[in-house]
């Protein structure tokens, strides 16, 4: 049944954003009201969409070359997209509300909310897209809203650089994504998912082509979901306001890559070779990010690396050909990671924008509600029994155990790391004694910030249970692993937690201090070096050639030859521009002459 609901859910945030930009830049209250109202409206629409079985929406032609290329703006409304709608608008609404408190003293509040609404619009577009080009459109728009929000405090050099880094790194991924789309279109003649699946059989004769196409499409996910080797932008993206880190750089946007791969699961799973690469990229990301997270000092960066690591798990699950498992972890992760970031934001605000964990300490006493909800998030993330992360992470581990033992071993080690770095963070920030004046005098955040924490904490508690998650997701099949699965992850988790607890209890500095991990394995420096020595060096060389060879050498050389050669041109040398203009007139006369009397 056709309905206006999907269109309204999509377009209202866009209108909100446009309204704020055009009319209410100065009216902060109004812009907050519009933006929050829009996301709540979208949330209600999403609930209605979710509750109806046979919903459909009209589509319009964006580009239509009959028989060649047809790109509609149309919607896929299945269980997957409906659930994603709820996650995006639900978590989005909570984070909008949280932002009211967090951003209330910021000069750019209206700009911030406009960008946030733009983000909701773009993200809903990705979720609803029924074809590759439409997905790519919103994919790019999400990139822009992320750019705007990371660069919100653009006067800070770090924020401005981080915004550029995020956008350009994503563009690198999108380069592959677009090429992959082109290849799939070349092979099947369509970009619409629904029409694509039956036409894939023709590709069976050329598996290499398909593998390449899938891997290129995967590049898009590598960029957006910040997988190794394009993960470097995400930790820097923490320069943005904390609610943005929670919404975009933890719960929703970075999950878009996973969602996209699940959406085109029929394509991805058609190529076993591609799947292998995908699972390994996920594993490497999970492991690397987990390692680096153990030695970071900035509370948001620890959480950012943890996000990377968890995204690695999801990609791993996609690579092990189980989209359901990936979506399950995406679902639970959205809640507990948003919760952790908002909790961290609450601490950061309480400490007047201090982010170094070694200057915190003892916050458990001062910020009780934050402390409790952050505990829930931590337990969910490390996979403590009966919290949501426990179920979804075990599902991934069971999957890995059943399909690929080496990956299982690495994933298990990552689970150990996860427990280690989270307990480290938790102990250093919340336990012990306050280690600075601000930490001593910190006060709990305003109500608008606490309510979302509580709601998310409840979701993080319930998110893993079948009666809750089963409503929204097709849950993964159970793997028969005997006692291995509940037991080994438990051991890893306990070992990591206990080790971190013993190591960090009562410390004022980090006793480990591993340089390589602290410096993020020098990957950023390495990329900087590569860019400097390839792109920028080539750029300088090209500029030199253009200036001194093509322009000065060839052109001036040729023109001075002409100077000597042509009397007309020599005449020009002593003339002026007006004379030249007249000469042009003569030229035209000459054409007429030439044509007539030739």
């Amino acid at each position, binding site marked *: 049944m056709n309905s206006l609901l999907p269109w309204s859910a999509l377009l209202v945030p866009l209108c909100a954003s446009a309204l704020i930009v055009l009319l209410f830049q100065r009216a902060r209250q109004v812009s907050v009201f519009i933006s929050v109202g829009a996301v709540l409206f979208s949330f209600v629409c999403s609930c209605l969409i979710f509750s109806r079985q046979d919903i459909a929406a009209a589509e319009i*032609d*964006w*580009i*239509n*070359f009959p028989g*060649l*290329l047809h*790109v509609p703006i149309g919607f896929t409304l299945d269980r997957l997209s409906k659930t994603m709608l709820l996650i995006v608008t639900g978590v989005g609404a909570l984070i909008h509300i949280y932002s009211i408190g967090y951003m209330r003293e910021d000069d750019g509040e209206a700009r911030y909310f406009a960008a946030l609404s733009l983000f909701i619009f773009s993200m809903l577009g990705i979720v609803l897209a029924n074809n590759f*080009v439409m997905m*790519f*459109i919103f994919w*790019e*728009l999400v990139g*822009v809203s992320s750019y705007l929000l990371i*660069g919100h405090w*653009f*006067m800070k*050099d770090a924020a*401005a*650089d981080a*915004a*550029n880094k995020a*956008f*350009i790194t994503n*563009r*690198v991924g*999108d*380069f592959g994504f*677009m*090429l992959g789309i*082109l290849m799939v*279109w*070349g*092979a099947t003649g369509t970009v619409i998912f629904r029409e694509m699946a039956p036409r894939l059989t023709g*590709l069976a004769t*050329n598996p290499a*082509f398909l593998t390449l196409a899938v891997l290129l499409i995967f590049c898009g996910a590598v960029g957006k979901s910040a997988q190794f080797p394009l993960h470097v932008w995400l930790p820097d993206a923490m320069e943005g306001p904390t609610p943005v880190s929670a919404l975009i750089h933890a719960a929703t946007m970075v999950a878009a890559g996973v969602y996209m791969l699940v959406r085109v699961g029929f394509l991805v799973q058609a190529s076993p070779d591609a799947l292998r690469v995908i699972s390994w990229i996920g594993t490497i990301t999970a492991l690397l990010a987990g390692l680096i997270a153990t030695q970071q000092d900035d509370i948001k960066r620890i959480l950012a690396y943890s996000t990377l690591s968890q995204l690695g798990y999801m990609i791993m699950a996609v690579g092990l050909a189980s989209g359901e498992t990936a979506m399950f972890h995406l679902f639970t992760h959205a809640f507990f990671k948003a919760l952790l970031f908002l909790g961290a934001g609450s601490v950061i605000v309480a400490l007047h924008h201090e982010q170094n964990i070694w200057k915190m300490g003892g916050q458990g006493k001062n910020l009780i509600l934050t402390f409790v909800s952050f505990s829930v998030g931590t337990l969910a993330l490390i996979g403590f029994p009966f919290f949501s992360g426990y179920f979804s992470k075990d599902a991934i581990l069971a999957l890995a155990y059943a399909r690929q033992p080496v990956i299982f071993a690495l994933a298990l080690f990552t689970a150990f790391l996860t427990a280690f770095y989270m307990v480290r963070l938790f102990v250093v920030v919340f336990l012990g004694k306050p280690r600075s004046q601000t930490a001593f005098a910190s006060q709990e955040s305003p109500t608008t910030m606490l309510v979302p924490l509580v709601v998310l904490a409840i979701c993080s508690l319930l998110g893993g249970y079948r009666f809750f998650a089963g409503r929204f997701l097709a849950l993964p099949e159970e793997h028969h692993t005997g006692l291995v699965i509940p037991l080994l992850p438990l051991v890893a988790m306990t070992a990591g937690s206990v080790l971190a607890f013993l190591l960090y209890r009562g410390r004022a500095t980090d006793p480990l201090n591993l340089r390589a991990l602290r410096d993020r394995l020098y990957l950023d420096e390495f990329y900087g070096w590569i860019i400097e020595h390839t*792109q*920028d060096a*080539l*750029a*300088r*060389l*090209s*500029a030199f050639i*253009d200036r001194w060879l*093509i*322009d000065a050498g*060839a052109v001036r050389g040729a023109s001075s030859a002409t100077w000597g050669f042509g009397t007309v*041109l020599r005449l020009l040398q002593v003339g002026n*521009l*007006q004379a*030249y*203009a007249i000469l*042009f007139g003569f*030229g*035209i006369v000459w*054409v007429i002459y030439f*044509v*007539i009397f030739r």
Partner: protein
Amino acid sequence: MLFFLTLVPLLAAIVILLGAPARLTALTGGALAFGVSLLLYARFNPVVSGFQFVTSVPVSRTLGLNFALGLDGLSLTMILLSTIVLLAAIWFTGEVAHHEHSFYASLLLMAGGAIGAFASLDLFFFYAFHELALIPTFLLIGIWGTGNRRAAAWKVTIYLAIGSFVLLLGLIMLYQAVPVASRSFDLRVLQQAKISATAQTPIYLLLLAGFGTLISLVPFHTWAPEAYASAPAPAAMLHAGVLKKFGLYGLLRLALPILPEAVHAWAHLLLLLLLGNIIYIGLVTIAQRRLDWMLGYSSVMHMGYIFLGIVSANLLGATGAALLMFAHGLSIALLFALNGEVRKNVPSLNFDSLGGLAKQMPIVAFLFGLAAFAAIGLPGFANFPAEIMVFFGAFRTGFDFDHFHQFQWTTLLALWGVVISAVYLLRAYRRTFFGTAVADRPPVRELPYSLRFPAALLMATSLYFGFFPQALVQKIMPVVRPYFAASR
């Protein structure tokens, strides 16, 4: 109506030279032209094939020379672009230091030439109108330019004169290659002409070199950044936005329908050159240290994508190329306009002495951001669907399952060019507007309210066709479809 539109800028220029209040008359003329082109757009019937609004005045019966004007979807698109940019350029003209009347008259002449060239159905006037537009370009740069303006004016003069001359040779050869029976200046007749494949080659190469110079095809491009850096903002807007498209329009109008075999046979050459525009110039752009030069080079670079669409020689590519001409014209015009506004406020456009301007001129920063994102092909702006069509069109040419061929490799590299353009534009944006301001900067004036309208006009148009590209696609498609129907 079309006849009237062609005359409006020319008449306005004459009236201004006769002493009418310059700015007022120019604005009226620009607004009138824009209004008429909107009317033409609304009245245009996409279902009818061939040209509409045709007027023909015989000039010489013996030669078959007619002053004939008409519109199809392609020329309509270009006319719409010309009038929008003209209006914006006039509006953005601030205080002219001296010879105000001549300045406005030159602007109008430039646009009038462009409009005339796009509307002409006659080869002779097609060429002559463009020449007419070149003269005021030189004057605008040479007299009212900044920096090393005389050198820049000379350079562009010589370049474009030689380009036009080569083009003229090509056109004459084209005319002569047509069998005597169907020989005509009329584009409608010429487009039906059959020329043998061997005869096509020299003509095509001459046209490519001639048009290519006008479009700043590598290696005939070095005039462009220097000219745009020196030109007063309105002149840069009109030239980069509109007049430069004349060459591309010519290739779409003449090379594709009349010389298809040569286009096909020499595709490898053009692919190589256009990669020069996209990759090589892209890299050169990254290395620029001044905002105006960066913009000048970026406009050279983006020509590569339009060439790619044209040389793909299929429906998607050619339509995309036409749309990209339109879209690029809007975005580059706004970029040059804002560049001019920044130039008024800072002592130097060197990146080292810029920075932090977003705090002092937020509206300029916002608009510049919009235009920059449009230029790097962000969805929402018209540039994006156009680039998508170009990429899809190019990728499809000679596609097979087993290997990538020249078009697929070029598409790949051109896609990398999208990354490059993000690098240079975002870096430039960051260095100009973000970060902290230099300490000793004199007070900066925000964009006046009156100038927000033309900026909004440019961006709103781009957004409209970015959201609804099909509105132009269905007008352009019937124009180019017959080009490729015969050969397949």
